């Protein structure tokens, strides 16, 4: 009798552990089980032999059946393009708006920040590569519909909801559906992006967006080709369209030693911004720290950032900042006419705000979204 019980237990343990393993693996491979539950992507065209072509970003991926796009977020299933990261949150935090960074957009506010997985670029210096270079099934995600997300954002008390951390554009459908609901609930919306997006979806996205931060990663096509997998021209086009749309725009450039930090390149970048976007667009120069595939490089010397700020201001830009470095001058917004302090910051926090409805004590208006 005892032998029989032991035998049954043994058999159950072996088969049970086999079943547990297979079930766990299956739930990781196909978390939603049924392909019908995936969200069909916008901006694609079905082609012959069940191929599809995606037009969301400038990569224009042409995909055979069963293949993922470069972004690792969109997949051709049975001749239709599906977004595999729809409703799957890989990262969620409430951050200060200054962390994005936005310095002229509701300063001191909290931002309900959402990240999914995937990216249309392959930056060697990516700061969030764990999620940006992953397939949705490679990392732990939690499900949330756009409505659930907006409800959570409202509950958090943050006045802004942002798609950030990985490239938001690869979760285009999820983001835009969320933004529509967020606007209806009175939230502001923000996008923190590389700017690598095709024109038509960008114009659609801008209808529901209040602030857009673009990483202008360098001002040379060579850099973009070598270290990002994107193209400078596409980013510059995005910047112009955002500026025309009147959505609030800020630009960040991460200065990487020996790669994009030459005074000539910084001067060209600042000149282009002045000539094409105007002098009021805030430009942030951010300090690089060794990460991902550029572990071999040193951090950016603070002097490089200070010099870059100085060059950009010489070129006529009025609001140039430094980030990831202790430099009070580079963290402060000044009233351009009087030189008085408008907003003083320390890290991500505001230590003094002298603006009233975006105006300096002398009445001078500072461009931005202040309430």
């Amino acid at each position: 009798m005892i032998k029989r019980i032991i035998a049954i237990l043994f058999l159950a343990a072996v088969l049970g552990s086999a079943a547990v393993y297979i079930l766990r693996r299956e739930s990781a491979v196909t978390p939603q089980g049924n392909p019908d539950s995936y969200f069909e992507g916008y901006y694609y065209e079905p082609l012959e032999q069940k191929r599809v072509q995606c037009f969301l970003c400038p990569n224009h991926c042409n995909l055979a059946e069963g293949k993922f796009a470069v972004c690792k977020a969109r997949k051709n299933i049975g001749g239709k393009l599906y977004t595999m990261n729809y409703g799957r949150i890989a990262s969620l935090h409430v951050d200060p708006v200054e962390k994005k960074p936005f310095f002229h957009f509701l300063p001191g506010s909290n931002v309900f920040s959402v990240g999914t997985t995937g990216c249309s670029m392959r930056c060697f210096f990516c700061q969030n590569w764990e999620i940006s270079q992953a397939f949705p099934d490679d990392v732990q995600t939690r499900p949330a519909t756009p409505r659930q997300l907006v409800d959570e954002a409202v509950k958090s008390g943050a006045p802004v909801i942002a798609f950030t951390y990985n490239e938001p554009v690869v979760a285009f459908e999820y983001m835009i559906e969320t933004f529509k609901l967020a606007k209806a609930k009175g939230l502001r919306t923000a996008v923190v992006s590389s700017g690598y997006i095709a024109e038509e979806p960008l114009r659609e996205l801008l209808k529901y967006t209040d602030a857009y931060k673009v990483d202008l990663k360098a001002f040379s096509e060579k850099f973009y080709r070598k270290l990002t997998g994107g193209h400078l021209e596409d980013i510059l086009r995005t910047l112009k369209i955002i500026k025309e749309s009147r959505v609030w725009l800020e630009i960040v450039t991460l200065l990487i030693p020996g790669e994009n930090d030459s005074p000539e390149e910084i001067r060209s970048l600042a000149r282009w911004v002045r000539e094409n976007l105007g002098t009021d667009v805030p430009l942030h120069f951010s300090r690089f720290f060794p990460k991902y595939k550029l572990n071999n490089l040193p951090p950016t010397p603070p002097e490089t950032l200070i010099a870059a700020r100085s060059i950009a201001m010489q070129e006529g830009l009025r609001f140039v900042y430094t980030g990831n470095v202790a430099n009070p001058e580079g963290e402060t917004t000044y009233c351009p006419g009087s030189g008085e302090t408008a907003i003083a910051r320390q890290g991500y926090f505001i230590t003094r705000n002298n603006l009233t409805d975006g105006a300096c004590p002398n009445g001078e208006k500072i461009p931005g979204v202040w309430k």
Partner: protein
Amino acid sequence: MDKSLLIQPLVAGLSVGAFCLTRCFPFMAPLVAAEDRPLHRNLFIVLEFLTGRLAGYLCFGILAGWLGERFGSRWLKLGTDLSFILLSIVLVFYLLGLIREQGLFCRASTFFRTRSPALMGFLMGINICPPFLLSVLYVFAQKSPFYGMVYFALFFLASSVYFLPVIFLGMLARAKELRAIARLSGFLAAFIFFFYGIYSLFRL
């Protein structure tokens, strides 16, 4: 080398070791309990299996560190599916006695005759499970074959703690009926994983 680079794989191994055992159990338990052997011989079999598993981890670690970004997840999945199929075949051959001293395949091969637990351990080691996959992603970022090896060696050590009780399963094999059940469970596990591997390989 940064201390955290050594602590991370140990913590990862300890935290997912129980899951690793669940994964190996359907193959390991029949292997240990299908024949009546003294305890020290079972210890040897488990160690052999674990050594094979270590070899699998190390090979995979070097490959992951060396290939860096070029190794996409779809290739990892293909590797897992194929290793399921091979593992099932080796287990069935072992249970049928085809790769033992008088076995059909082993008259000419000392390796198969004496090293089948190690071979199964190796196939288990290269058989990638989700926590292992996370470790792989981490090693990708380091882009160093040496660190890849160190990482997987430490991950192996920590996760192996959970395998030690399996040695005592061999005591069940003293009863003939239990040996038969061990064999039966081995065949069933091999059957399940073989067809799961095929299904997984060919699905969309």
